[in-house]
């Protein structure tokens, strides 16, 4: 899978290293447990190609306790509904208190995935959380919205999509890496846990060149572009 396909699923599939967004979600889960005296466990849930197992091991090295890994070679052909259905089936088998996901800023598919998972599991959903406070009664999260900030609260269990700003993940320790090798990873297959159809509900008809909206005069020897900038500023009467 390329870095960016027609669904713009960058960073979500086909990587053998943990992507920085998942690393943040794992970091946040580990921190929440640390703040509560390490009561409970962090379980990683992945639906991915077998080559992505290395990324799951890295997540375990970062402090997660165990993982559920659904071997799905077709994952990159699944649409958001199928991915949500698959992940929700894995998640519900664990009956967790908190489901954490993390995607990059402006990732609409990521936010759709979180709200679809919440709907399937009948859990409250909060997306793009920049801060998170967990107490016995529930979770309070703050996000940036158009024109301001929004603070919301939900009772447990709930689904939370984290924003990139949520934390700066710590590097895995050598001890963590060694421990990760013996942490349990339960393998399963899609057919065994999902009974409904995972057929995509939309399909790509074709791709063609987009009309050019900007001049795109690129100067690889940057200094040569400075006179061009001056000319443009001059044209717009900004050099007076």
């Amino acid at each position, binding site marked *: 899978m390329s870095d960016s396909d027609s669904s713009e699923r960058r960073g979500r599939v086909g990587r053998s290293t943990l992507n920085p967004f998942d690393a943040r979600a794992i970091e946040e889960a580990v921190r929440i447990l640390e703040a509560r005296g390490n009561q409970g466990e962090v379980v990683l849930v992945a639906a991915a190609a077998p080559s992505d197992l290395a990324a799951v091991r890295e997540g375990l090295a970062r402090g997660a306790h165990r993982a559920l890994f659904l071997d799905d070679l077709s994952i990159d052909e699944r649409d958001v509904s199928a991915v949500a259905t698959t992940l929700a089936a894995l998640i519900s088998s664990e009956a967790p208190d908190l489901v954490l996901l993390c995607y990059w800023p402006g990732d609409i598919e990521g936010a759709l995935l*979180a709200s679809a998972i*919440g709907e399937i599991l009948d859990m409250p959903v909060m997306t793009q959380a920049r801060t998170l406070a967990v107490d016995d009664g529930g979770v309070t999260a703050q996000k940036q919205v158009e024109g301001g900030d929004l*603070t919301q609260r939900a009772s447990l269990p709930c689904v939370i999509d984290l924003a990139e700003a949520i934390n700066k993940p710590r590097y895995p320790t050598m001890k963590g890496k060694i421990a990760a090798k013996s942490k349990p990873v339960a393998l399963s297959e899609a057919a065994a846990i999902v009974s409904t159809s995972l057929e995509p509900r939309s399909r790509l008809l074709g791709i063609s*060149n987009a009309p050019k909206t900007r001049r795109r005069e690129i100067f690889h020897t940057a200094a040569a572009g400075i006179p061009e900038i001056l000319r443009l500023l001059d044209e717009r009467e*900004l050099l007076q």
Partner: protein
Amino acid sequence: MTALVPMNWLGVSFDEDSLAVLSKARELDDQTIAVVFCDPDASALDELSRYGAMMVAVLHSEGEDLPPARLQAIGIASLAEAEAAEIIMASTSSHNVEMMGALSVRLRAGILWGLTDIVRRDDALVGLRLVHNDTEVAEFAWRSGPKLAILRPRALSASEWPVTGPAIKRVPLEPDGVRHAEVVSRTSTEGGGQSLAAANVVVAGGRGLEKPENLKLVEQLAQMLGGAPAVSLPLVEAGWAPRAMQVGQTGTIVKPQVYIACGISGQIQHRIGIEGAGSVIAINSDASAPIMNFCDIGLVGDVKELLPQLIDAINQRIAP
């Protein structure tokens, strides 16, 4: 055929994007239903009608000025079934995205987002989305209906339709037993952003500046051109600058004559904020950064060296 369009009410009018989606829906389906979440007054009704609404559905729940996304999804799902809707079209807002994700589950419907247009071809609806840094356009078809679509911000412009007296339909939302998030508080971004929105020239700095003190170069250039300095989201996150200085989808949408992006990669949420700029000049060390596909003049190089050079060159030109 029937189209449903959830509308974003801004207190005095509906937001431009949702009006644009509404007028597009009317182009595709003659039965266009605007979905609102509080009682519309006469001028709101007039606005909805002017942008294509044939019917206005009022979904309201007790004590909520904006019902939670999960509740909205329940109301819209039942309306879609009652009206046999062909398509549900929404503008991109963080609230709409949450609502549409839940709706796709409720209706078992295919969902396409980031669409720049929807066209009818051989009697089937086709969604268009720009991909690969906006250099290519991908066409998608929905396989199962009703079709769900989220339109990219500012992709469409609102067109007016003859005003009719739209019928009003009320759909009460029943919150019983639905677990959803509650709003604790909502704050508006403090002023500042307005002067940015109105600026004739905007010079913005991003991660490529590397150190907070290099923001001075951005400020200096902005001042020389009679413009406003700005930053990208990561610099706000890093605490280098206040939210009021942020350009982008969740910051300020700017429309200057000239926009100069200094060390900004140009992710989609940033690009949405500058789409209306007259000319875009980009300085970035990475020739493959998305901004290089969305600029008029692009300089590939170290912004920390090039900004002083540009400032010197301008100084020489404007020196008496």
